[in-house]
């Protein structure tokens, strides 16, 4: 109990420090913080669903893009907070439909489907813009500063990790553990397995949609190839896997160093960036499939056992 209170105090203190940071780092620093926090939320939200269910989703950018495009389309007609609500609503609705259709798919079919989904939505939006509205890109003129975007993302990060913390302590969290251990037992003890997966997918997708919506004003100019860029899905996945998709803080811990690394790579090796990304992806899947945190724990246990044996 006291440990929980201490933990909360530490997190609150950390959040306060992070919220204060923009006043200290200048415009470039704020840009970095903003992008980093965006990926902390994306990776954490991705892991909410993909961590316990082990469904590898490449639909991240589908929802991210839906969020960004909703802002691009509605920012002139609705107040900002209402635009965010509409974006979240659309993300949730799409997640429910897609989830109902796909959560029965096993393993690799799910991966392929989610990748296809992101491409499909991008093509649909492109087609609509070209044929119906007669434009390809849209401008977003919202009086929202980078600091404000950063603070919103920071709040969303706290919310996402808070949701993960609550789930782990809830009946939903127990249901996930039971499903992870034995789906047959789960079903026979009354757990609605598809319902649980759908709920998680919906929560995860709604948060991801909000990240896209909150970050949209940052771009000023938006077009499908920018906001539906599949690299976003792959980066999110690599970050969450590196940190450990089954740990509360794992995805965040994976997102921070990888974001900085990718920033540096894309600035210094723009033409080799994709190759390096692909190689990292393969390396992570082979070397630390359960994440660095779990890997370190395993190593620690092994060393301790050796110490006891000696």
């Amino acid at each position, binding site marked *: 109990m006291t440990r929980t209170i201490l933990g909360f105090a530490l997190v609150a203190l950390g959040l306060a420090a992070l919220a204060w940071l923009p006043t200290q780092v200048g415009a470039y620093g704020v840009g970095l913080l903003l992008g980093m926090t965006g990926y902390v939320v994306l990776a954490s939200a991705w892991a909410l669903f993909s961590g316990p269910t082990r469904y590898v989703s490449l639909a991240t950018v589908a929802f991210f893009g839906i969020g960004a495009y909703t802002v691009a389309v509605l920012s002139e007609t609705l107040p900002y907070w209402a635009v965010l609500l509409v974006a979240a609503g659309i993300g949730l609705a799409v997640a429910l439909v897609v989830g109902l259709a796909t959560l029965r798919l096993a393993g690799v079919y799910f991966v392929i489907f989610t990748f296809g989904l992101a491409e499909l939505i991008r093509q649909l939006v492109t087609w609509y813009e070209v044929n119906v509205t007669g434009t390809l890109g849209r401008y977003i003129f919202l009086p929202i500063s980078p600091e404000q975007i950063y603070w919103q993302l920071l709040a969303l990060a706290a919310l996402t990790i808070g949701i993960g913390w609550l789930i782990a302590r809830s009946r939903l969290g*127990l*249901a996930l*553990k*039971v499903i992870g*251990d034995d789906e047959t037992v789960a*079903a*026979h*003890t*009354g757990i*609605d397995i598809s319902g649980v997966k759908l709920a998680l997918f919906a929560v995860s997708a709604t948060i991801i949609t909000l990240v896209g919506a909150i970050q949209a004003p940052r771009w000023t100019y938006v077009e499908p190839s920018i906001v539906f860029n599949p690299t976003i899905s792959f980066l999110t996945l690599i970050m969450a896997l590196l940190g450990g998709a089954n740990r509360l803080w794992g995805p965040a811990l994976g997102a921070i160093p990888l974001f900085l690394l990718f920033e540096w790579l894309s600035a210094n090796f723009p033409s080799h960036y994709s190759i390096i990304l692909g190689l990292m992806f393969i390396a992570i899947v082979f070397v630390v499939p359960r994440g660095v945190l779990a890997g370190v724990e395993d190593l620690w246990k092994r060393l301790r056992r050796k110490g006891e044996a000696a």
Partner: protein
Amino acid sequence: MTTLLKIQNLKKQFGGLTAVNDVSFSVAEGETVALLGPNGSGKTTVINMISGAFAPTSGRIVLAGENIAGLAPNRIAHKGIARTFQLVRILPSLSVAENVMAALAFRPNHLWGTEARDRAEHLLLEVGLGGRGHEHANDLTYIDQKRMELARALAAEPRLLLLDEWLSGLNPTELGVGIDLITSLGQRGMTILLVEHIMEAVRALCSRAVVMNVGTKIADGPTADVLADPAVIVAYLGDGHA
């Protein structure tokens, strides 16, 4: 006595193999009935269809007047049917208490928090695992895993309990304890359908027995009569012994 479970013309085909063929029988409220038959006769398949693991190819499974055939297992669990598995199934990453709490947390009138913890502890005591809730389910011996599995089934407070060879693999002392445990459940009015190869247990526990052979029902009646039936003896021991 009112009928709780009524199986009507139940059939299950796996490709070309008919595992269960036109089986009908019923179980009355409060009764303990044995489902017998040699290896591969289709007993587990019947249990699997009643609990929803498999949908029947055809036929009806009526629980208290409602046809539940083909419903998803979680829906059937919520209708009041709980089961154990022929090959014991535990949740290996959870503690013993959590294994039981999993069933408490997802039954219709679910329990959670300290209520669930207390109830789990009580159920564990009942199956002979008192005070061992904190242990890792994976560290339990086979017999204790079976006990835990029974506690998990009882946690659902089922109207109908399905036991698939729950007594197999026990040593003689453990068998006695197991029989006493199931007897006490029956005395509390629980309705039980059990698959068993140990005839001593069947005689002690079941007033009625249903016998299957190669997917079809060959006998149904009071246990003593059924076990003396020449057709049953032939099915179990082969022609040479009749």
